């Protein structure tokens, strides 16, 4: 139950942040979203009915290792993409928002206007 609540809370906060304008907030939102999904993967292993793997000697109730491997992979990938996104937030023209450039896609740049 606490796991489900945690996933819900993280997902809600993540969605809220992703819908913001600034790139940094979007990145933080994605960090929360990927955490939510990681917890979901852990929950998929059936944590409620399983125990720690090495104590007690009973393998039938040992924790499922596969979701944990999934989570490990997902964390690494999410980390890499977070770094890429953080780079994108910094480089460029120093504009930290996702709006299209004021000139618009179709508008000719001022210089080509001048040149012609």
């Amino acid at each position: 139950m606490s796991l489900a609540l945690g996933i819900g809370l993280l997902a809600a906060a993540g969605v809220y942040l992703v819908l913001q304008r600034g790139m940094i907030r979007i990145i933080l939102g994605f960090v929360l979203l990927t955490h939510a999904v990681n917890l979901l993967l852990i929950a998929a292993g059936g944590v409620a009915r399983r125990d720690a793997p090495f104590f007690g000697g009973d393998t039938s109730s040992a924790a499922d290792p596969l979701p944990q491997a999934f989570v490990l992979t997902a964390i690494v990938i999410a980390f890499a993409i977070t770094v890429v996104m953080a780079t994108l937030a910094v480089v460029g023209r120093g504009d930290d928002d996702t709006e299209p450039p004021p000139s618009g896609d179709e508008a000719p740049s001022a210089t080509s206007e001048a040149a012609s």
Partner: protein
Amino acid sequence: MTPVIEALLPLFVGAPLLVGGALFVAPAHHRLRQVLGAASLVALLGGAAVLVLITADGTVLAHQVALWPGGIAIPFVADAFSSLLLLVTAILSAVTFGYLIASGEARSPSIASFVLVLAGGVAGALLTADLFNLFVFIEVMLLPSYGLLVILSRRGDLGGSRLYVTVNLLASTLFLAGVGLLYAVQGTVNLAELAGTGDDPATAIAAAVCLSAIAVKAAVFPAHGWLARTYGAASPAVAALFSGLHTKVAVYIIFRISAVIFEGDPAWMTPIIIVASVTLLVGALAALGEREMRPLLVFQMISGIGFILVGVAVFTPAGLAAGVVYMVHHMIVMGSLLLIAGAIEHTYGSGRLDRVSGLRTREPLLTAAFVVGALSLAGLPPFSGFVAKYALVQATAGGGQVLVAGLLIVASLLALVAMMKIWAEMFNGKRHADVELLAAEARIRQRHDLLDDAPVDADAVAEEAALAVERHDPPRGAETADDDPHEHRGTRVPVRLLVPSLVLAAISVGLGLGAEPLLQLAEQAAGGLTDTSDYVRAVIDR
């Protein structure tokens, strides 16, 4: 022979990744990088062709990585469908890389590596039969794509790249959640073990989460808006590469999941046919409103995604086969047209319909390539588009969806109108006098490596334009009037930029005239999708 090939399947992923990684660290000259990159892509192409030959008779190749027993191992599988797509993606990667070399964009040190890693990720996504592994390979595809987008972005503005990363990360996260839910319900993410489990409502919903996430990546309505913005901001060659690889891999996954997990259950195919119909119509209509060549083509591409998905939504053998044929046709033709747009933008510095004009009298090769691409896209014989659209309309009507078949024809007519718009404004119109200045400005920018919005001295542009006119259009006697731009017939687009699109146009003609082998392959692929027992047997030996 077959066991050897099966054991080599992971090489389709491993080899490009390895070479790509080696090129990153090798202190090589850019020539060497380009040669090695091109050679690896051609080798990938050859390998994919071998796979197609082997799987053409319905053989399914499978390799259990590290020789774990089936069901535990992460499997690589090649059947007729995935082999065919692997071949076409390899063709597109090789041709686009050729364009990148021709346009000089491949000089940047990491481009060859990025393209190779991208090709390796695509091969992995097509060949894997494990949903979590699929997620990993999608990310392997995406990371070099981010690099290509940013490094070769057109205007030095990163808005498009940011949007692209954001949308794709959101879709990937959602897909991963779907995979987690599937594991929670079924205890496995192996596609073969999931075969036919779509009857169970909980499994169906989990798989539907995966499908929705992938539909975002495929730019299916209503999540299609990001595509025009991001592909318009990328370099034209990158847009051509992505259009053939990313969205089509997503469509491939939709085909695979619909076939293996849902087994074409009509209850689930009805929503797909609705969104597919809306996608093909919205894309075709939106294309008419564009004022630039590339966004126009990108909306046509979205329309094409709808066409392909109609094939899977009908889910008859004929419908699936038609969908596969359409997918192959669309990848080739869209690649060709986007590379033509790239050649125009590279030479004239703009793809705006109202600025570039009069190309017909000046650029015969470019015009020929465009005419082939445009007519093929609209679906006129003898090009591949005719075969694909004929098969698709026939299969859709045969599958009882007469209304959708009508929509397909309407959208094809709209595609023709969109192509005629490009033709009328860019090719057939009277050449504006300032086209020469545009081209001169583009050359100056390339020479000095300026961004698209950096200021350029107007006098230098005028001088460059005058030089070009002198060089290409020597006065032919007294009858040549300087003020008649139609008299300047010297071509401006270098042939090397046109070879890639001409190759793809030639393939389109070839597929139109000799469609029989492709149709047979597509029928074989469709057979593997309607009856997944061979696939399941190969993967988990059951």
